[in-house]
């Protein structure tokens, strides 16, 4: 049997799965940000006409999946797997989204790294010929996450400059065995890293080692240099974590400063409220679906590396003073030749 593995952690696809379509739906703050015009749909308030934040998140995720399917001109019967995750307890937003579709469902949790975890798994399912089309989606809702992880939304408190703002956003991509569009070339699944950071208001510091390790392993496994990529996008180290991640890589002799961007920084204009940048499952998912996918589709890049990073803490683990385990998964995507 021939295996599609290279090095310590990378799956390389001989027949590359195609990212057939992608769609992003965001809330009002994200819509007013620098990428506002690129999103497929922007809601004018954070409840989206629903009675709770949780229902709103689920609606947003459903909307993203619907739009992605419509763009790919597929109906649900043609999709073999639906892979989704979000930030809420027991990934309930994804479960409510999935009950609306007649598609086999795989729920996953990787915090902000959910979308790259999903794209990795989806690509493997397609490359392994277990699926023709796979939908991957993830979402986060600022207010729903805030009340679960921190304080009630209307409670007045000051955020430290290292804090990150959970994005109200959802992204969905359709992966296919064939079709037109950018292709998933390789996926590097990260190992959990925990360097003892306990402060949930400083997730960038906690996630940076995971990011650096996964990027380093990816380049090692592929036998490449940073110059082989037009762009390395992390999601979501924020401003603070980006500087740390770049330095950690520099210590390993890898310089990505010129080509590195962070989804959490790209999504918002700087403000004290947003702090270090955006975060949440929807952040890098919407930046990829709204901006990067389109740019890849239009062949503005030859090859990019999307490295979504997840802080895998729970509200309970934080209250008990435990440190934050983090993971990062890298997806290398090339534009169609």
């Amino acid at each position, binding site marked *: 049997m021939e295996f599609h593995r290279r090095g310590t952690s990378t799956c390389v696809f001989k027949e590359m799965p195609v990212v057939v379509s992608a769609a992003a739906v965001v809330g009002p703050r994200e819509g007013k940000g620098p990428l506002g015009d690129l999103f497929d749909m922007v809601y004018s308030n954070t409840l989206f006409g629903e009675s709770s934040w949780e229902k709103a998140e689920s609606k947003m995720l459903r909307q993203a999946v619907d739009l992605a399917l419509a763009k790919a001109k597929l109906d649900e019967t043609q999709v073999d797997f639906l892979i989704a995750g979000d930030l809420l307890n027991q990934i309930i937003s994804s479960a409510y989204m999935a009950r609306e579709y007649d598609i086999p469902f795989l729920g996953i949790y990787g915090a902000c790294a959910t979308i790259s975890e999903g794209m990795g798994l989806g690509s493997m399912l397609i490359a392994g010929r277990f699926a023709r089309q796979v939908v991957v989606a993830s979402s986060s809702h600022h207010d729903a996450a805030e009340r679960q992880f921190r304080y009630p939304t209307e409670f*007045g*408190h*000051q955020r430290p*400059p290292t804090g990150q703002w959970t994005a109200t956003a959802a992204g969905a991509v359709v992966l296919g065995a064939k079709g037109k569009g950018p292709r998933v070339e390789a996926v590097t699944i990260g190992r959990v890293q*925990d*360097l*003892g950071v306990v402060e949930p208001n400083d997730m960038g*510091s906690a996630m940076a080692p995971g990011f650096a390790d996964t990027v380093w392993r990816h380049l090692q496994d592929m036998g490449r240099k940073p110059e082989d990529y037009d762009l390395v996008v992390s999601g979501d180290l924020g401003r603070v974590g980006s500087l740390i991640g770049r330095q950690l890589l520099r210590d390993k002799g890898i310089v990505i400063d010129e080509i590195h961007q962070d989804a959490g920084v790209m999504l918002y204009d700087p403000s004290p409220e947003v702090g270090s940048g955006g975060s949440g499952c929807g952040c890098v998912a919407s930046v990829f679906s709204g901006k990067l996918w389109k740019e890849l589709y239009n062949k503005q890049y030859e090859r990019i590396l999307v490295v979504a990073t997840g802080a895998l803490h729970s509200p309970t683990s934080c209250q008990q003073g435990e440190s934050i385990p983090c993971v990062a998964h890298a997806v290398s995507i090339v534009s169609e030749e």
Partner: protein
Amino acid sequence: MTKANIREQEAYSAFLEDFRPKRPTLRNIVVAFLTGGLICTAGQGVLSCILSRGMPEKQAYVLTSSIMVFAGAFLTGLGVYDKLGSFAGMGAALPITGFANSVVSPAMEYKHEGFVLGVGARMFQVAGPVIVYATLTATIVSIIKLYVF
């Protein structure tokens, strides 16, 4: 990789020092002082107004607190107080309006979980520790006063 050992954790923590932006402490203190002062001035204004209408002093204090609590709750309901809190920090949290905010905000948040297990159980999620330790401190101080002085 498993969890880093203590030495690695300490080394990483030291490494992070250079990257962490400092909190703007001076700005925060000045803004908190001014905002807290303004809220208290408003409270004093309410009190003076009530006293000038001839209410006995003791009742006037209670009524002033009630009015300020209502104002805090009202502004929380309008979605204004969280922005004030984010701007002024302790300056908005410490006056009684901030206490109202800390009680009303979870009440609003958890109303979807019902009036008993939602609002009832969670209302003092933020303010609870304040009440617990204020009661405890008051008890200790009272005991000291009773036996020592």
